[in-house]
């Protein structure tokens, strides 16, 4: 047992005065007896310890001494050391992901998990020896080393005070790896993982690196033993949340031939609690363009496996996918929110989507003679097709550059490629994409047999190359990161797709009139898929509805423009729009609306949502699983290094005081 205030033991000095007073003020009642002869015999043996014999049966004195001793001990604030180890170096690995915003932790049970973790770390700092060195790492989608090993408590506390929940998903692997690396560099420092454990199991192989395969299980265990997991939050949750929202536009051609988009807002609501929940979903427009939709949902509870926390039972009854058809012409922010329901995790109780476009895809076909391609593009629903001769295109390109074609979502080149292609979506038929590492090998393949095709790529959805003959095709070298969609024997790529941050292209190395593909039903499907996939890279199609952690891509301006971006937190951040590049803002750390304060055509609003079922499934896990075999169980003993017991001593002292009162007044004797 140790004492926080050893000076309190000075209270024990109160015992000698009590003993002194006892002996000095002991008033014995005189009692005349016929003879002390027999009394002497009786106490003969007791007189051997005469000084203590007086004390032995004086219950009141004993109670008084005990009372003083207990009070003295209570003043000294004794505590039981719960952790045998006195950590010299300690790494705090703190989870700051979205689920840590759940308000079900702390002594009250209504404190946010991260706040409870921070409080506990601060308490732990008081218990550690002054020379102990501490490291602080936070992890969510990213891993951020906040404080490297230092014994400066103020620095650690300042870093803790700045910590806040980032509405991001959890990727703990990097955090664990960084912590393990730090631990190995600093005398195998202990790692305290403060989290709710709401993430999938970690990769043992990645965590231990190449050693994992070669090392014995004992060594692996030795390394992992440095990790101590302290769980925050309940293993039971009452959360119901929106885990998905999108607005799908369906082109509708008007009587005048113009194409408009009718939007369907799809919302997925999931119940993550074990109890059945009744919630009402409301879908409304920011500017009141339509009367809000209300939909009452009855969601079944989920049953979890106690050991692993995995969800079992009928999942399909625990969620509901609802679609709301918006009136034609609706634009702006559409908000889906759960009303008449309150849970401890508010981040997923609402989600928003921004609708800005109300027109179909604009496709430019640069070709001179490709009947089948034009026909296939024409039949795609909602596409506004424009045809342009290759020479005209090149003239315009040389006159105005690529900005002259930014009004198109997708450009299809047949036979003639553009001089360069750096951004946007494009289809290339018998035209080598002007993209680095796309090379013409100068070979030609004729009637390749049994081509293989990638059915998993969106471009190849519902497309088959069986019974497709190709009379002649070029053999192109493709970038290593390109996806080979159709391959002839000998690894000769016939169709490939390539995408990077700015562009999406689909390249086809044969002419449409040198194959029977256009005669197949797969052809219009392939063209539609390719157009839709490439349109995602269109500057006009940069999404305004994002998930947290995804970057905001600001528009290019004609001239450099300094403006501001308003964040959901109310903060305003200065941003600069450049003419040559699109500014990216990656700090979408909070759900809500991000608004670029600029005049048209630059001003716009983004809706950033959590929409992550893993974060919404915020029932805390009792263990962190690493690989298939290792589970670090949650234990508070590693964070609670002491347990004060002064209050129990105070209670005991009060009890003894009461007992003394009874003895005194009833004159009880033992």
């Amino acid at each position, binding site marked *: 047992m140790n004492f926080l205030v050893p000076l309190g033991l000075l209270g024990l000095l109160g015992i000698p005065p009590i003993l002194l007073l006892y002996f000095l003020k002991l008033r014995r009642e005189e009692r005349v007896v*016929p003879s*002390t002869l027999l009394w002497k015999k009786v106490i003969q043996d007791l007189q051997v310890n005469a000084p203590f014999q007086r004390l032995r049966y004086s219950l009141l004195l004993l109670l008084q001494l005990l009372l003083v001793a207990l009070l003295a001990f209570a003043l000294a604030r004794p505590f039981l050391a719960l952790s045998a180890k006195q950590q010299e170096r300690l790494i705090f690995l703190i989870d700051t992901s979205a689920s840590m915003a759940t308000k079900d932790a702390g002594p009250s049970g209504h404190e946010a998990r991260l706040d409870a973790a921070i409080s506990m770390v601060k308490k732990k700092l008081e218990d550690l020896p002054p020379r102990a060195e501490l490291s602080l790492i936070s992890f969510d989608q990213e891993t951020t080393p906040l404080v490297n090993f230092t014994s400066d408590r103020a620095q650690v506390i300042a870093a803790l005070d700045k910590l806040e929940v980032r509405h991001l998903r959890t990727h703990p692997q990097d955090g664990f790896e960084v912590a393990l690396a730090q631990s190995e560099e600093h005398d195998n420092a202990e790692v305290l993982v403060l989290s709710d454990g709401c993430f999938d199991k970690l990769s043992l192989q990645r965590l231990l690196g190449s050693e994992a395969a070669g090392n014995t299980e004992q060594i692996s265990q030795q390394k992992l033993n440095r990790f101590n997991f302290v769980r925050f939050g309940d293993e039971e949750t009452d959360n119901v949340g929106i885990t998905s929202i999108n607005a799908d536009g369906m082109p509708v051609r008007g009587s005048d031939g113009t194409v408009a988009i009718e939007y369907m807002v799809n919302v997925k609501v999931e119940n993550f609690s074990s109890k059945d929940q009744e919630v009402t979903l409301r879908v409304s427009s920011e500017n009141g363009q339509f009367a809000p939709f209300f939909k009452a949902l009855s969601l079944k509870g989920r049953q979890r496996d106690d050991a692993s926390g995995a969800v079992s039972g009928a999942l399909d009854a625990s969620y509901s996918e609802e679609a709301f058809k918006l009136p034609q012409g609706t634009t702006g922010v559409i908000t889906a929110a759960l009303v008449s329901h309150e849970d401890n995790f508010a981040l997923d109780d609402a989600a928003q989507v921004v609708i800005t476009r109300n027109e179909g895809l604009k496709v430019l076909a640069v070709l001179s003679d490709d009947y089948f391609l034009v026909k296939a593009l024409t039949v795609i629903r909602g596409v506004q097709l424009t045809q342009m001769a290759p020479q005209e295109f090149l003239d315009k390109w040389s006159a105005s550059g690529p900005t002259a074609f930014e009004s198109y979502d997708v450009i299809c080149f047949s036979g003639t490629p553009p001089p360069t292609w750096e951004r946007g979506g494009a289809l290339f038929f018998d035209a080598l994409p002007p993209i680095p590492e796309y090379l013409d090998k100068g070979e030609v393949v004729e009637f390749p047999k049994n081509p293989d095709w990638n059915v998993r790529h969106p471009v190849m959805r519902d497309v088959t190359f069986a019974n497709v003959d190709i009379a002649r095709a070029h053999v192109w070298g493709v970038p290593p990161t390109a996806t080979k969609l159709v391959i002839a024997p000998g690894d000769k790529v016939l169709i490939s797709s390539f995408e990077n941050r700015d562009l999406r292209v689909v390249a086809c190395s044969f002419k449409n009139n040198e194959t029977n593909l256009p005669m197949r039903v797969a052809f219009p499907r392939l063209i539609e898929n390719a157009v839709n996939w490439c349109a995602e890279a269109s500057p006009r199609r940069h999404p305004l509805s994002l998930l947290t952690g995804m970057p905001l891509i600001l528009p290019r301006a004609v001239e450099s423009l300094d403006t501001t971006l308003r964040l959901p937190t109310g903060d305003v951040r200065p941003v600069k729009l450049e003419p040559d590049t699109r500014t990216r803002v990656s700090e979408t750390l909070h759900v809500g609306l991000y608004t670029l304060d600029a005049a048209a055509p630059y001003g716009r609003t983004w809706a950033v949502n959590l929409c992550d079922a893993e974060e919404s499934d915020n029932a805390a896990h009792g263990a962190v699983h690493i690989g298939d075999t290792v589970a670090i169980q949650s234990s508070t003993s590693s964070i609670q290094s002491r347990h004060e017991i002064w209050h129990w001593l105070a209670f005991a002292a009060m009890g003894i005081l009461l007992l003394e009162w009874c003895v005194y007044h009833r004159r009880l004797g033992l």
Partner: protein
Amino acid sequence: MPEAIEPRTARPLLTPDFMAKLEALGLVSKKILAGKLRGERRSRKKGESLEFADFRNYAQGDDLRRVDWSLYARFERLFIKLFQAEEDLSIYLLVDASRSMDYGSVNKFDYARKVAAAIAYVGLANLDRVCLNVYTGKKEFVLNDVRGKQQTMKLFKFLSDIQAEGETDLQSATKRFLLRHRRPGICLVLSDFLDPQGFENPLRALVSARMDTFAVHVLAPEEVEPNLTGDFLLVDAETGERLDVTASRRLVENYQKTVRGFCSSLQQFCAARGVAYLFASTDLPFEALILNYLKRVGLVK
């Protein structure tokens, strides 16, 4: 007006009714003891009572009035007719009047002198010789050779006038008593026997002097089962010696055990030497003691 305190000496020791009951009793000795005067008890000696004892040949000088002339007519020889002699009985009452006897809600000394008075009265009523020895430490109050009921008041006054004082010294008291009284008799010792020098020697001396000894062990109930809890300063009534005692339940139990052991050892000592032992707690009415318990031990009939 406060009630006048009646002097203790004026209080009668025995009530007339009880005295009437006592007159029907007589003291019994297991031994036939030689008396000093003619009394009402049969003696080993041949005497002049009406009870025939034996014949013997006539010797010169015998009283001719005792010759049995009928036998002379038959045997033509002279025979003297012998009769049982009747003698008185000596009753010795040794009463402890030390300070230790002046204790108890029913005072031990009062109790002892009432018992002594009753026994003495029985003796007087039977023309026995009663000797009262009341010893108080070094001092001794003696009333010798009282005989006949007319001495009753004198005896009562003698007992009433004595105050308990001094220390218990059974041995010296017995020694002085035996020096004065060599004639055997019934010796009744009334004491608490709380003598630091022990009770063995005095009782042994009485037995050696052929006394038919009765030990009446007088104790107050407060002595046997003291009601003590807490811290006490016990003061010895005789010596004034002080003893600090923290009276726990265990200590009191040990004391009670010691008292029982003390009584038991006295009883065993008496039984081994033919001394009748009678434990007399002062909460026992002394009339019951005389009429019932003393009968049981064979002192009275």
